[in-house]
């Protein structure tokens, strides 16, 4: 019955309106302009179909219809009850405020010696996205600065600075001096839209003060990043690598390319596809989580067993550790499972005329060429409920040149200083409900989704221009559509 209703393919995947670019084998290339145009138009038509599809029969198994401030905190409805204790354990770890060693509470000890924040949810408020500080005095509470110097780390990744490492840790445990502070100021300029509307855009300028381990060298590369939301990541990990790679060769509108990042997998000890992080610089959730534990909170784990102290940081190196590692394998497993199981919010008001108009405009403006509406998941053993699902993340997980204005000039594996991974748009309409200060783009410069669109350049220049050329009512419809996600 389910097959008849939802059109499940032989492989068991619900394939109504699936990502069509992924269907074409990479060796099949059309070489005439006509073929390209036909292919592109067909693609648009099928994306249009996909955007207008009603909810899939099993979409409710892996998404949540909760649209409250707790929208990003929900487990997928299809999570087996037997997995609930593991989910709750993972949740308690994400909520845990960590303790400096030594402590009688060994299981929650290990903060520092250097760190940014005390807990995961200090940055990921409500499991949502971060924001840029409003004033230079305001600390980066949901944001951090990545650091590197020219060269690579031996695996093709950014080369950490000898004294500061790969990330500025503003805080230190008692006896260990924090590395310094990043102050954010903004420069502002106005963008005039075709209908005469002026939108003010702000660009952050970062200055570093109170640097405790020496001045930054002139060649230091810095990249401020706000925290990304935590939900739906299990579903993104469940997308087969081949499908993401196929998107590279899928036909796209003029000027839009897209390529994969290849990054170091600590567990496998080799370079693999990158799919998480602002530059697709993380291979999987486990490494992303373990990386955040050690990088943001100084908590070691089986994946990263060394404290985040450089050779130049003597007091840091002599600071007591809460264990080796501090986060046990069981705790890392629970944290990973929690992230796997977090549901993405389901689209709201999909039948609203303005939303539907906005969806059509999203397509016409070529936004969907990179913010691919649908992907399919493959087999996913850690949480089988995520397997063979149609998902609507609005991303291709690929890197795109976004132009000079957004560039951080800091390469990250194969990603250049101008390239960023297409961030998923699912749940974006609830970002400000979850946290009224939520920002958009990698450094939180955009205060609204429209501002974020207007920053698009490079491969997305035509898309941004289309939006600039829209009438006020069309822009409103586009915004309504994005708010419905």
């Amino acid at each position, binding site marked *: 019955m389910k097959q008849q209703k939802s059109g499940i393919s032989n492989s068991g995947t619900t394939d109504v309106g699936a990502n069509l670019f992924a269907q074409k084998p990479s060796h099949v290339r059309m070489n005439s302009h006509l073929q390209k145009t036909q292919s592109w138009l067909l693609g648009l038509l099928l994306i249009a179909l996909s955007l207008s599809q009603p909810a899939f029969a099993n979409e409710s198994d892996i998404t949540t219809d909760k649209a*409250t*401030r*707790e929208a990003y905190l929900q487990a997928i409805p299809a999570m087996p009850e037997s997995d609930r204790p593991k989910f*709750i354990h993972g949740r*308690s770890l994400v*909520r845990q*405020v*960590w*303790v*400096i060693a030594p*402590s*009688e*509470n060994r299981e929650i000890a290990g*903060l520092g010696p250097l760190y940014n924040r*005390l*807990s995961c*949810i*200090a940055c990921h*408020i409500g499991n949502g996205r971060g924001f840029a500080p409003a004033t*230079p*005095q*305001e*600390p980066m*509470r949901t944001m951090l600065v990545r650091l590197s110097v020219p060269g690579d780390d031996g695996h093709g990744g950014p080369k950490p600075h000898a004294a500061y490492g790969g990330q500025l840790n503003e*805080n230190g445990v*008692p006896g260990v001096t924090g590395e310094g*502070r990043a*102050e954010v100021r903004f420069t502002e300029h106005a963008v005039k839209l075709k209908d005469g509307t002026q939108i003010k855009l702000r660009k952050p300028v970062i200055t570093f*003060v*109170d640097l405790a381990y020496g001045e930054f060298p002139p060649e230091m590369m810095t990249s401020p990043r706000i925290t990304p939301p935590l939900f739906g990541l299990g579903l993104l990990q469940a997308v087969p690598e081949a499908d993401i790679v196929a998107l590279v060769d899928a036909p796209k509108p003029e000027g839009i390319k897209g390529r994969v990042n290849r990054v170091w997998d600590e567990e496998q000890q080799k370079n693999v596809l990158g799919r998480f992080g602002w530059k697709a610089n993380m291979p999987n959730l486990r490494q992303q989580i373990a990386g955040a534990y050690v990088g943001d909170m100084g908590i070691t784990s089986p994946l990263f067993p060394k404290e985040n102290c450089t050779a130049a940081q003597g007091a840091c190196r002599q600071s007591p550790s809460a264990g080796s590692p501090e986060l046990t394998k069981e705790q890392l497993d629970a944290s990973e499972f929690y992230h796997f199981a977090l549901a993405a919010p389901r689209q709201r008001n999909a039948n609203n005329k303005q939303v539907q108009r906005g969806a059509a405009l999203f397509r016409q403006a070529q936004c969907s060429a990179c913010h691919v509406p649908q992907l399919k998941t493959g087999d996913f053993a850690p949480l089988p409920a995520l397997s063979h699902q149609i998902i609507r993340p609005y991303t291709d997980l690929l890197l795109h040149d976004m132009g000079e204005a957004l560039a951080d000039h800091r390469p990250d594996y194969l990603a250049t200083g101008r390239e960023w991974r297409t961030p998923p748009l699912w749940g974006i309409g609830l970002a400000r409900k979850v946290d009224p200060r939520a920002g958009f783009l990698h450094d939180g410069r955009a205060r609204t989704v429209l501002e974020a669109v207007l920053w698009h350049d490079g491969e997305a220049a035509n898309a941004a221009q289309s939006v600039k050329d829209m009438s006020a009512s069309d822009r409103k419809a586009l915004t309504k559509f994005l708010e419905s996600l």
Partner: protein
Amino acid sequence: MRAIKWIMAACLLLLSQLASATEKVVVLSSYPQEVITPFEAAFEAAYPQYRLEILWRHGRDAMTYLHQPHSAVDVYWTPAQRNFAVLAKEGAFRKLDIDLSGLPKKIGGFQISDPDGYYVASETAGYGMAYHPAELKRMQLPIPTDWKSLMSPAFNGHVVMPVPSKVGYAPMLVDTLLQGYGWQQGWDVLKQIAANAILADTPSTFISDDVGSGREAVGMTMDFFARSAIANENPLRFTYPEKVGYSPAHVAIFREAKNLDGARAFASFVLSDQGQKLLLHPDIRKLPVRPAVYASKPKGYFDPFASAQLASYDYDAASGLMRQELISALFDALITRHHLELKTMWSAIHQAEQKTRNDPRLQEARTHANWLPLTAAQTNDAALQQTFIQRDSRAVTLEQQWDTEISKHYAQATQLAQAILGAKP
């Protein structure tokens, strides 16, 4: 001219450095991140010259840390009433020399701040019942109005009760019942609720989870867990019992505070109108201790100062705090370790009561069911309290004796009730 320019540039540089210089205020706390984040942001915005450094430790771990030399903490700000009492006694705090006007030391009969002025209540929370209205309706159960409502056999299997030896907030919850109803009646109520209950031995928010999701109909919990869930649009409700018990949190400044001005600034901020209003945030939902703040409370927000005028009782927090471990051990003996026996016993008694009210064996069964190994006076014995704080060998011996006696009494009560049920009319 060049010299003037140079001096001006130097002054500007100095001013910008002064502007960016911040002093740390070190605060020890065990608040969850949902509380820390808004206070941190609002305090640093109100006092840009200070930067808050939170050292997070709870309970005994906090005491161990504070007893180390050079612990270098300026402020203690947390819900850990006994720690404050002990530290004040040890002389760790200085008298709070900040403006405390508009901050009552009591809510009705509940002393919330230190009478000697070394630590003051910074917020409080009330104990009560979270319930799922749709589940209650589905099961045709009434909305509870008091703890005693949950004693009814109708609630069997639909109540969640926290275990005080496992759940941080539960020792005071249990003690407020024991002091509110009196020692014997308090335990009678607790035991009969427990006979209906699923025991929760996991951290605190899970009771709101269980009730909010409809897995259980009613949970004994603290107001802010439920109120926060309600504020975030979860389908549960919360009601207070007739006599509300409170669990205050406090703020104090250490005698050895390195940044005394910063410490005063933080303590003042926490107690200020602005700080107290932060407690109304949907993710916090604690009860402000500054009555004036309730003028801007959200609709339906509980006002303990108004409520205390309606129903009040004197709660002796000092003795309640000192006997916490002893009461928790008694709870485990009377309820946790004999939960199945307790359920069987009360099921048999309730069934017997349905059959007859006049059989003298019924009273005898109740006497056995309500048997307690200690009197209220014995729980105030300092040596006995220490035995259970330290959990020495005497504690183990006593618990074994209690277990034997409790099993015997529960078995006798069950046999008597079953005998009534088995007896021919």
